[in-house]
């Protein structure tokens, strides 16, 4: 039985992701680590409108009956929990960040907030879809050194101690990319205001 406090957190973050246009109706995913178990969204459920029965609990290290209901992205979440200190994962489809991921190998924010918080977000490529070991391994590898990464043309994976924290990294990235897009549209010379700015690209 999943504690109602835990469900409430999933419901709020899922609703906010949908409201912020960072997922489609059935897209994206959330999970948390509970000891040696993971709680993850049920396959086919809608993050923007979660019900208590939409959360599934299963083991991190091996299968049990919970996997029959779990999200197709269970494998990538499990792999991340096995390879990083993450206690929560937010996977979403931030549109501007996805657009940038199609032309860059890394997203280096130029706004102050994301420079400070994220420094740099790597973009990894994997054409195999969600749920495959190939994709799970690449995403987990990248998250060993970064708290948020982009899967090219797909979306972001962010980790934290709480869903709240991982959501913060996700929304910070999308906001930063929207600012970068606006800067491109304005198309005026960039004034570098950050001391040691070359450090961000080397993060």
């Amino acid at each position, binding site marked *: 039985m999943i*504690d109602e406090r835990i469900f409430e957190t999933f419901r709020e973050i899922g609703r906010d992701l949908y409201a912020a246009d960072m997922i489609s109706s059935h897209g994206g995913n959330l999970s948390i*680590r509970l000891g*040696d178990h993971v709680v993850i969204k049920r396959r086919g459920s809608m993050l923007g409108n979660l019900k208590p029965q939409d959360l599934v609990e299963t083991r991190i290290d091996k299968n049990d009956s919970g996997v029959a209901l779990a999200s197709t992205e269970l494998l990538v979440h499990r792999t991340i929990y096995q390879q990083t*200190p993450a206690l929560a994962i937010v996977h979403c489809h931030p549109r501007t960040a996805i657009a940038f991921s199609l032309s860059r190998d890394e997203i280096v924010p130029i706004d102050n907030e994301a420079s*400070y918080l994220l*420094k740099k977000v790597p973009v990894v490529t994997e054409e195999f879809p969600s749920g495959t070991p190939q994709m799970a391994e690449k995403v987990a590898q990248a998250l060993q050194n970064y708290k948020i990464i982009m899967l090219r043309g797909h979306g972001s994976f962010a980790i934290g101690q709480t869903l709240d924290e991982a959501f913060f990294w996700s929304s910070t990235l999308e906001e930063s990319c929207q600012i970068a897009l606006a800067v491109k549209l304005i198309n005026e010379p960039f004034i570098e205001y950050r001391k040691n700015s070359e450090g961000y690209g080397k993060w």
Partner: protein
Amino acid sequence: MNGWSEKILDIDLTTGSIKTYPLDMEMARLYVGGRGLGTRLLWDLVGPQVDTLSPENVLIFTNGPLTGTGYQTSNRFSVSTKSPLTGTVLDANSGGFWGMQFKKAGYDVLIVRGKAEKPVYIEIKPEQVSLHDAMELWGMRVNALTQKLGQEKNHRNVLCIGPAGENLSRIAAIMNDGQRALARGGPGAVMGSKNLKAIVIEGKEKTGIADQEKYKFLVYETRKMLAANPLTSQALPEFGTVVMMNLVNNIGALSTRNFLHNQFEGAEDISGETLTEKYLVKNDACWACPIRCTRISKTDKVKGEGPEFQTTWAFGAQCGIADLAAIIEANCLANDLGFDTISAGNTIGCAMELSEKRFIDSDLRFGRGDLLARTLEDMAYRRDLGADMAEGSLRLATKYGAPELSMTVKGLEMPAYDPRGMQGQGLLLATSNRGACHMRGNMLGLEVLGLPKMIDRFQVQGKSSYVILNQNSSAAIDSLVLCKFTSMAVADEYFARVLSAVTGIKYATGDLIRVGERIWNLERLYNLREGFTNKEDTLPLRLLNEPAPDGATRGWVVHLEPMLKEYYRARGWNELGIPTAQKLVELELDGMQTGEKENQR
């Protein structure tokens, strides 16, 4: 090598031999430094047959690869030994300047073995290490001794014991430049048992840094993090660590009168705000620390560093005392005598309850701030009831027939937090390897301060994940060695990158946390080897059975059992709390003795 000096200094006080030899760099990679390296060396040097106050116990002083680099709060160092208070593995760490000098002296580790025939002190200079007669120094209090042997504008720093350590009080600290302490678990008694009065140190070497460019960028970004976080840039500098008093009291998690209550009506009178308004002379800082949480306080009678939050709680709420001047004076006296102030105050609070309930015949009563100084003196010199109190609260309460009134875990006195109002803190304290300690990870950040984000403090399901991550992270930070307040504002990711930049060895965040997990498991193995079992992973019965009476925590007890079951599974331990063979292989700890047979009896 960058980061490490690659050198161990080994002194045998019985024979007078002084040796240096290379640090095993594979061991350094796996355990980093500080607490990790100390625990690993202690595993080899001190087994279960060793009496903690015998010459066979050792003191292992360690710094870390970041110590002395100048990275924010890279001033700390550690001592490891087998605790005379608890019989568990023990390390205690401290800030100030001594650790930086220790690194600059060119050593990663100082091992002190044996027992000197007569009192001695150790002098470590860049060109020479020597032992000196300390007959005339024996009996001196901490401040006078520190002034006699040390300082010179922080070019010469002093560790020493006071009367408490000389008289083998099991709650005696090793004092660091007079006012700071390697406090918990009684390392001062081990030093006293060796007839070692002091260790004086001077150094001049610089710590090598592999990638200066990355290192400088990390220092710059860390500065921003510390400056932007209100805890590290405003609350701690303005009010000191005592800023926690009102915050913890407001949510009903401030243990009061030996944990009979969970809120203190006098909290405002002993708060950080009151300390700043009435008694603060100025704030100060450890080496390379921009936070500056150190207080210099003054009353009509004394002037000195502190008091810290835990000390103020221990002599304050724990004893039902709302007289901040009396608490400041007790703090200065406890430092001068060389006590762990948490254990000293907690033990006095225990004695007050024993006395009120007539288990002992004494005038000690909750609220009697006027008796603090006399009681501390009695404890340091083992006079009257003080002789029993010098043994710590568990031995005291057991002797007088009421062990349940000792607020301890594994024999170590509890800190300020009432875990009935912080369920995760309850699990953390119950499973802490050196006993009830809030520095082996602390759920204060997640359950009270919202750092990095707030979680529900009453939630039970899933708490083990947070506790385990905090414990592992804490063990890693204690091995670098950095201050825990930095980690309230700066993520582990930064520390892994700084460690990589300094040493030139690649550590991802997960690698650093894995170092912490390895240390935690080795400490667990050590305690199992000493005969500890899962039965000691518990809390005082009062916290498990008596609902909290006050405020927003009213009605709660600690729901330890379900959290503990989840914790063992999540740690990769069996139901008896013993690391599985698979977990040991995963952590490169295979081959270490598990003590499993003893534990199953």
